[in-house]
């Protein structure tokens, strides 16, 4: 079966930086596929290569079986791209923007106007149709931007961090819109820095870091590797951290993350019920606690679990070999 996106060994080099360093992707038709990673991981770069906006330095990619390198013009007829930063014309109104993009893609004048009106309606922008974009809020811009990608109803949509910087309500609306797209038969590739966003939307996720794939799976598989919840413990002054670690290991069979400097202990949990087990175990061992809290795992914790380093850290310790295609970060040769 031909896939919506099929990529092998994608590489993009900027000077000394291998922004994307040998990534494989397989995205099925009708999927919402999430690319999760911290700032600078290479998400935008990868998306731009697939969307014909950046030349592919090494590797190959195909969109619905059409080769991205050899037939970019064909690929452009199959995709809609909504970038991380608004890509609409500041000098035009919302309606004019959509009309222009419609005309550029072969719609007749009347058809372009009708499609523009329809999309503005669908995205709740009818009242703002004749306003200049410079007067738009961040959320309105994002919606217009997405609307502009849908004019020809392309079967594959690229969304680069569609909700970064939006308030929670607008974010929820954007999520509904994205689900609606897939319901109508689109395939969506979206990048995000938020685990909960990937969790809410994506059928499958890849986690990338320093241009490499570090994990891949369904949101559940990914979260199970970290635990659904994280128990944060801070020990009272003088309490024995390594003893506390042993207790957790014995009670849960899982690996806690210790931060000796602040006497902290983060424990991945499969279920909230296990909190009691841990606390009772600690009481019995005589470990005194200063504070306790339970949270959903953050992207940082997912990262720590997957890569053994913080999302924000710049140096790169050896990543876990089984999660990664075996490739040494060699010097750039061109």
């Amino acid at each position, binding site marked *: 079966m031909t896939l*919506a996106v099929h990529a092998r060994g994608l590489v993009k080099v900027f000077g000394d930086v291998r922004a994307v360093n040998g990534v494989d992707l397989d995205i099925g*038709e009708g999927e919402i596929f999430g690319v999760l990673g911290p700032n600078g991981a290479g998400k935008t770069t990868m998306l731009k290569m697939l*969307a*014909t*906006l*950046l*030349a592919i330095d090494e590797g190959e990619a195909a969109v*619905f*079986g*059409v080769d991205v390198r050899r*037939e*970019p*013009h*064909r690929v*452009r*007829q*199959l*995709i809609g*791209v909504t*970038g991380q*930063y*608004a*890509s*609409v*014309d*500041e*000098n*035009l109104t919302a309606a*004019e923007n959509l009309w*222009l*993009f419609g*005309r*550029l*893609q*072969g719609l007749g004048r009347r058809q372009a106007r009708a499609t523009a009106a*329809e999309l503005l309606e*669908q995205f709740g922008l009818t009242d703002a149709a004749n306003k*200049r974009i410079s007067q738009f809020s961040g959320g309105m811009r994002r919606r217009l931007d997405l609307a*502009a990608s849908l004019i020809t*109803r*392309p*079967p*594959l949509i690229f969304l680069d961090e569609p909700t970064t910087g939006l308030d929670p309500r607008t974010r929820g609306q954007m999520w509904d819109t994205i689900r*609606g797209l897939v*319901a*109508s*038969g*689109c*395939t969506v590739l979206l990048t995000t820095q938020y685990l909960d966003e990937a969790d809410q939307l994506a059928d499958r996720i890849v986690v990338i870091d320093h241009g490499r794939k570090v994990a891949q799976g369904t949101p559940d598989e990914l979260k199970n590797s970290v635990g659904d919840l994280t128990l944060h413990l801070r020990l009272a002054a003088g309490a024995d951290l390594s003893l506390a670690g042993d207790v957790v290991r014995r009670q849960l069979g899982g690996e806690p993350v210790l931060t000796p400097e602040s006497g902290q202990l983060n424990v991945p949990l499969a279920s909230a019920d296990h909190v009691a087990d841990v606390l009772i175990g600690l009481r019995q061992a005589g470990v005194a606690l200063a504070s306790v809290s339970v949270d959903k795992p953050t992207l940082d914790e997912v990262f720590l679990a997957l890569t053994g380093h913080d999302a924000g850290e710049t140096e790169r310790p050896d990543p876990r070999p089984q999660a990664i295609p075996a490739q040494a970060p060699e010097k750039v040769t061109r």
Partner: protein
Amino acid sequence: MSTITIDAWAAVARTQARPSAADTFRQTLAMAWRATKKMRRNPEQFFDVTLQPILFTVMFAYIFGGAISGDVKSYLPLMIPGILAQTVLTCSMATGTQLREDMDKGVFDRFRSLPMARISPLAGPMVADLLRYTIAATITFLMGIAIGYRPGGGVLGVLGAILLAVVTGWSLAWVFTCLGTVARSAQSVQGISMLIMFPLTFLSNAFVPVDTLPGWLAAFVRVNPVSHLVSADRDLANHAELTAQVGWTLVACAAVIAIFAPLSVRLYKRHL
């Protein structure tokens, strides 16, 4: 809208390998429409095309008129076609600067991601710029007439001179468009354009008779395409004569387009 479902494979089957000539034409006009909207909403873009011909006509006439031709009135037939050439050249320079500015905006990312002919984002603004050249050329003549210029070529001669100047300005704009696609910033386009523009306009017969110049300089001035435009426009505006100079000007224009239009598209594509 959600009732329409998308058939990816039908969409793949519908794709075309390259844009047709009709697509290219429609896309260029759509981009020209965008450029005129932008002009209407940023009227300061018209400052150079309106103020420069007014200012330069008056300034040059009263400063050089007495020295070169004895008095202002007899200098005008020599000078107005020169100012005309200088004005359209300045306008065509702005084309490159504005393209560079435009290309740095987010919306160009969308243009790049659309199945568009790669020439239309370049050619569209240039079609819209025809308006600017025409305004600038017309104001130059009106200003000249206001201070006493009486073109001997009559209405037809003057219209011919304007038309030739517009065509030349448009052709030369491809040089600056090309520059716009390679330069790092709008400022650098501006800087380099000035370096090209000043020798071209001042080392020509635009403001002084060639026989007053030293031999080596006269040699350059005679081959400078701007000189051909100025001579052709003098013949048209002052005598309504269609001389060989018109032909030379058009040949130079054709050569500039043949070199710089494909080069610009190629360099623009390289940005991808």
